[in-house]
């Protein structure tokens, strides 16, 4: 059997068999699933109950019937009741809480209080404040004595939801949503950062282990050092891919099981509506009109723009940059591992490798705000940062030539980087006892075969 594949096999098998690997691989999806499921459970407990809320107003009946009932909550307007009367007894009378509106409400923003025994859901609070705000605005407008005010209000009542349409070079227009692109960019940029760092440093630790356990000289009397280095890098990449695949499958499976078995269907609907109800918390020009209809069109347009993303390109780019980015950094990490005697000594060499990764991540985050900026452009072309930045840029439609340039540069850099790393590695793994300096490493690069 080919020796490099023997090395890959050993790296893979010994790592996959480790207890820590098995535990990590099984536990992580459980944790991820918890992150998805727990909020759903919490929401279902909180929101399921129908709430009856007493409304009390100081000095007048300006807000009688102003807050419309929802499917979860009913608002009962109580006259002739003072706050102190009901404050201690509302739950015995079957109320979820008491909404108290003071007479200062038109001038002081926090003159409204909701008294309840439990933390009320955000959606309910939004519903109340939106209704009250609108009524206060209406009443203030009334003060200006404008004719036909009600009709004017109806016509100016509008709801704005920006849809972005991008026109490509052939003039075809596409509906895109910056939200989806941003989400994708964020996830892929961050994932790339994590994966490269996690598995790259595993390579480094593996090299240090071989060096400190002194097995390395036995092995390189049978194989070339570069074979040992590449075998380790590839073996660990396969371990990473295996772990990743198991994580995705298990997480999806657990979420699916939990959704179908434990949570009632209604909750799922609510969970799915969560982003929309949260969205309402933002200062939108909320209309009394038909929120449900607006939500529907929002969801539809989100799906439409998700479909419009060039998924093929995104996935290809992600895989390409993952593999190349990993190879680039793993070879640097391997070189570092070979130059030191133990893990504490890696610090001085880690910095120059870590900086581009972190810089890449920062620029990638900035890219989401402004994908066409020149800094994003350059960082997505330069090989050390391009795996993270370009992946974050691609959902925003990057010109083909930029992608080609970036990928081409990446490939050239990898070859150069592996060649350099192999030279350092070859000398470094046989050096014991003395602290290595940058100057020393430079000399290693110039040694002959």
């Amino acid at each position, binding site marked *: 059997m080919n020796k490099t594949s023997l090395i890959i096999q050993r790296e893979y098998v010994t790592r996959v068999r480790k207890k820590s690997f098995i535990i990590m691989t099984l536990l992580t999806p459980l944790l991820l699933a918890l992150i998805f499921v727990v909020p759903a459970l919490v929401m279902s407990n909180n929101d399921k109950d129908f709430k009856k809320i007493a409304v009390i107003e100081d000095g007048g009946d300006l807000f009688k019937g102003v807050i419309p009932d929802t499917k979860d909550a009913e608002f009962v307007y109580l006259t002739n009741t003072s706050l102190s009367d009901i404050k201690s007894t509302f739950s015995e009378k079957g109320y979820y809480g008491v909404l108290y509106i003071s007479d200062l409400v038109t001038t002081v923003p926090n003159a409204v209080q909701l008294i309840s025994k439990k933390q009320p859901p955000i959606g309910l609070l939004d519903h109340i404040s939106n209704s009250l705000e609108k009524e206060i605005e209406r009443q203030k407008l009334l003060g200006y004595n404008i004719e036909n005010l009600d009709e004017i209000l109806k016509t100016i009542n509008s709801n704005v939801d920006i849809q972005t349409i991008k026109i490509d070079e052939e003039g075809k227009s596409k509906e895109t949503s910056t939200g989806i692109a941003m989400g994708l960019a964020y996830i892929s940029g961050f994932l790339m950062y994590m994966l490269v760092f996690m598995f790259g440093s595993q390579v480094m630790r593996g090299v240090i282990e071989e060096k400190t356990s002194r097995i390395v000289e036995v092995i390189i009397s049978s*194989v070339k050092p570069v074979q040992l280095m590449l075998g380790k890098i590839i073996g660990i990449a396969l371990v990473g891919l295996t772990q990743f695949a198991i994580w995705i499958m298990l997480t999806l499976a657990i979420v699916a099981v939990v959704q179908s078995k434990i949570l009632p269907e209604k909750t799922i609907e609510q969970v799915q509506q969560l982003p929309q109800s949260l969205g309402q918390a933002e200062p939108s020009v909320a209309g009394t009109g038909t929120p449900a209809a607006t939500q529907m069109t929002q969801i539809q347009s989100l799906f439409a723009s998700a479909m419009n993303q060039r998924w093929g390109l995104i996935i290809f780019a992600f895989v390409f940059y993952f593999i190349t980015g990993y190879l680039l950094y793993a070879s640097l990490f391997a070189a570092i591992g070979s130059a030191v005697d133990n893990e504490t000594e890696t610090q001085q060499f880690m910095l120059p490798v870590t900086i581009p990764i972190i810089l890449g991540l920062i620029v990638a985050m900035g890219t989401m705000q402004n994908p066409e900026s020149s800094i994003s452009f350059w960082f997505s072309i330069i090989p050390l940062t391009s795996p993270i930045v370009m992946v974050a840029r691609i959902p925003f439609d990057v010109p083909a030539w930029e992608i080609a340039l970036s990928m081409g540069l990446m490939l050239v850099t990898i070859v150069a980087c592996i060649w350099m790393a192999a030279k350092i590695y070859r000398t470094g793994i046989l050096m014991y006892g003395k602290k290595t300096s940058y100057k020393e490493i430079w000399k290693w690069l110039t040694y002959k075969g």
Partner: protein
Amino acid sequence: MPLFEAQNVTKRFATQTALDGVSISVPEKSIYGLLGPNGAGKTTLIRIINQITAPDSGTVMLNGRPIKPEDVYKIGYLPEERGLYKKMKVGEQALYLAQLKGLTRAEAMRRLRYWFKKLEITDWWGKKVEELSKGMQQKVQFAATVLHEPQLLIFDEPFTGFDPINVRQIKDEILFLREKGATIIFATHNMGSVEELCDNITLINKAKTILEGRVDTIRQEWAGNEFDIVFDGEVTPSGNEHFSVIRSHFEKGRSNVRIKAADTHDTNEIIRSMTAAGTVIAFNPALPSMNDIFIRVVETKNSEAAKN
């Protein structure tokens, strides 16, 4: 024809010369000692033989041809700095190392059974390396080194970490391997084992060869003017113009006497003086130990270098 030959090998690192025109010639089926103080360049030479590093100049020949990358299968190497993967099981690890030397899994398995039994480490097959004592680990490494039955075996300080019983066992195995046809290069500081095992040696000091040849020839050349005489009964000869007595020791009815002859001496005169002193049982030129020779040669060279 020598099995292995290095001619005029030079290797320089940035600040120092590790080997400066060193040549060695290892006859087939012999044990060749590679001696020298720490940092003399032995390990560099061994690494060149193993093609871990390449020489700057000079040729390295195996079986009369320049050495090729495939020749690693014909070489077995036990480095001085050796270890095993601590978390890996002993058997798996030995199998892995054997496969890297080109054996199939089945063949490696068959041979490992034989060697593990021979070295009495079969019970350790399923244990993790970290659970083994240092001596046990060394035995596993020894087995992994010889498993692919290489033509040329290189042992760098093979006895460190072994107790005397295991040293004996490993020495026997090395002699057994030579009988079966292997050629062995043996790097060590342990001069006792050099006398016992080596046929030829090369002594390297400060990147250069300072002594080489057959062990018995070298010892005779360095014998100088000393003789060992054994007398029956307690006898102490007194020195004269031909010789002086260095030491005399009486034990179990015999006297062991070492004398130093004068620079211009007649051996027959000395023998006559001895027979006059008592009943001579044995009269031999005293061979210096390799240890003495090592120290004398290296110190002479170093003081010469200091003068220049």
